[in-house]
């Protein structure tokens, strides 16, 4: 059988059909990403249902604030991390950049700097730490997984040198109340407010701009993207810097929210960010991910955690739930993929036999 020759020579021949064993044009049209996101919507509804069953508090007005406040910083950091993962890299040093930023802000404030200046320096420091990650990954070509595990420890180490074993606090009460009260006339915590703004910006950049197209292209095939004139290294560098800046911004939020800064205040919490990013349907191998996925994943993550805490489920059992969700998020698409590929292989085989 030589379908290639037929389609090429016959002027009115059939268009090539996608290799889809299910034969459903519908599935191809929706695309794997859409399917994952609709799954997340269902899961979010299930979470709300479960939460309202587990605790009468869950749907109470006021609880939305608590659902949001515990996930805000993670959700913000998940946005640039998602972009980085889409390009096929990863940044595991987000929380240590958060800690370093918070510690530097606290240190400067404790040494008499005005809080605003300390905040600006802390956020700018994020650009530096992010650029260092980007330099190691794009210029020296080192694997980002290893590099950022290294800087995860490195940045926290620097933070510890700056503030060895004390916490600094005493930030102006007007600022520290961001952890306690929502944005006036709403139930939205400040961090979630910032998240919404950043999410909209990220969504526009990723889904509506040439830069976003290039980010997907890099993740789909770095080499082919480079052959198409995409500035692969420059874009990756920019994303690492963005990740650094937003992590540092979260360091400021975090320190204000807890009214203190300490070098180990977010140790181990990078996993929460990673969970949100991958639960959002972002492909570890790159090329796939969406802002709406991150928003939904963050909402589910926060909702599940809040519902379980309200239901007094012990923390270790909550970890089991969160861990299972993460595994499911990579397992389900890959099972679907194996199913698809097996079908295709069988089809190929049948074609060859003919």
């Amino acid at each position, binding site marked *: 059988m030589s379908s290639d020759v037929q389609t090429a020579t016959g002027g009115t021949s059939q268009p090539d059909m996608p290799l889809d064993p299910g034969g459903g044009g519908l599935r191809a049209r929706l695309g794997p990403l859409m399917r994952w996101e609709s799954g997340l919507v269902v899961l979010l509804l299930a979470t709300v249902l479960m939460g309202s069953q587990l605790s009468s*508090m869950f749907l109470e007005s006021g609880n939305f604030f*608590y659902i949001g406040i515990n996930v805000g910083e993670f959700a913000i950091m998940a946005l640039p991390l998602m972009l980085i993962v889409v390009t096929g890299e990863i940044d595991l040093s987000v929380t240590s950049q958060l800690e370093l930023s918070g510690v530097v802000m606290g240190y400067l404030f404790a040494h008499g700097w005005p809080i605003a200046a300390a905040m600006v320096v802390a956020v700018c420091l994020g650009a530096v730490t992010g650029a260092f990650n980007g330099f190691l990954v794009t210029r020296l070509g080192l694997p980002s997984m290893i590099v950022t595990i290294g800087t995860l420890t490195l940045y926290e180490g620097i933070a510890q040198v700056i503030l060895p074993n004390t916490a600094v606090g005493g930030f102006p009460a007007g600022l520290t109340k961001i952890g*306690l009260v929502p944005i006036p006339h709403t139930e939205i915590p400040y961090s979630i407010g910032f998240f919404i703004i950043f999410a909209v910006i990220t969504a526009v950049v990723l889904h509506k701009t040439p830069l976003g197209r290039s980010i997907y292209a890099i993740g789909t095939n770095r080499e082919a993207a480079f052959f198409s004139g995409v500035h692969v290294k420059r874009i990756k560098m920019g994303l690492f810097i963005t990740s650094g800046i937003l992590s540092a911004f979260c360091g400021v939020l975090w320190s204000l929210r807890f009214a203190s800064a*300490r070098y180990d205040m*977010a140790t181990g*919490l990078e996993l929460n960010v990673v969970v949100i990013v991958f639960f959002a349907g972002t492909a570890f191998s790159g090329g796939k991910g969406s802002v709406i996925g991150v928003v939904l994943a963050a909402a589910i993550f926060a909702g599940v955690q809040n519902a379980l*805490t*309200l239901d007094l489920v012990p*923390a*270790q059992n909550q970890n089991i739930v969160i861990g299972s969700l993460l595994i499911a998020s990579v397992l389900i698409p890959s099972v679907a993929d194996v199913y698809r590929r097996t079908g295709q292989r069988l089809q190929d085989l049948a074609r060859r036999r003919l």
Partner: protein
Amino acid sequence: MKRLRTGHLRVGGFATLAVAAVMVAVLASAGAATGSTNRVNSPSLTKGQTVYFIPKDTVNPYEVIADQGGKISLTAIGDKQVVSSGTSDTAAAQEPSIQTAIETGAAGIVIAGNDPAALCPELNQAMAKKIAVVTFDSDTNCRQLFINQANTQQIGESEVQILGKEMGYKGQFAILSAESTATNQNAWIAWMKVEMKKPLYKNMQLVKVYYGNDDPATSLQVTESMLQAYPNLKGIIAPTTVGISSAAQYLAHSKYKGKVILTGLGLPSQMKEYLYDGTVAEFELWNPRNLGYLAGYAVAAIASHVITPKVGQTFRAGNLGTYTIIKGVGGLQVVLGPPFVFTKANVGQFNF
């Protein structure tokens, strides 16, 4: 003295120096002075309240026992205990539990703070909503009352005293602490250093404070490295249950067994074998169950408006007797009692 006697701990055989004696005398006299209020206070504790116990994490064995003590006292009062926390020792992990307590309208919170400052925004908010906030084991900067397991000064001093006696007041020693930020650890270490200034210890030298982060593996590693770094090390003080058991585990299987003196704060159940095999001769601890038990009565007393609290007020803590509120370092506190010294001879009587 009767007040310090407990169901589990016998104070007999416990020898403290002058400072401790003065301390106890003050407490005893305070208890005697308020004897008349006992009968008034106890019946008026409100029943049916919910109290959140928020340990550093949900798996710390010491605090699990303390929480059990809290359950005993709260059940006796007729209140309900809820234990809630995270699995990592961070302020961020404890925060959702405080929020839940606030949201569900709990009467009181008993918390072992992972961070003295970072929990304050939430705890202040809880207090603003008339929730009684009591800290135990590890204090925070914002609470109504701290249940001090033992006088910080007494613990610091007695640790050095035990070590000095066993080392013959000569040689190098190191401290194996928990996190470098742990409030209680740093307070004890500060008092150890004060005690060291006495001429009795002029031939003893504290070489370094190591931090095992209350993680068995880290503590083990740190023990190994301090013994390598200081070959002439003669003693280790580990004022943390995780630290002392890890260090004992290392020493028991090394050439240092019996040569390096180890003491500190430990759980009898974990340390029993090391007392019996000679790795450790003596260590100290208070009874964590009594700590939680006392915290339960304290928080109930505040939540029931039996105490305000302020200095000099007293309340009755079930079979532990009557306690008086005194002024401590970071605010108001009550002191459970002096630490108890465990030896090969008495350790078999304890099961926690």
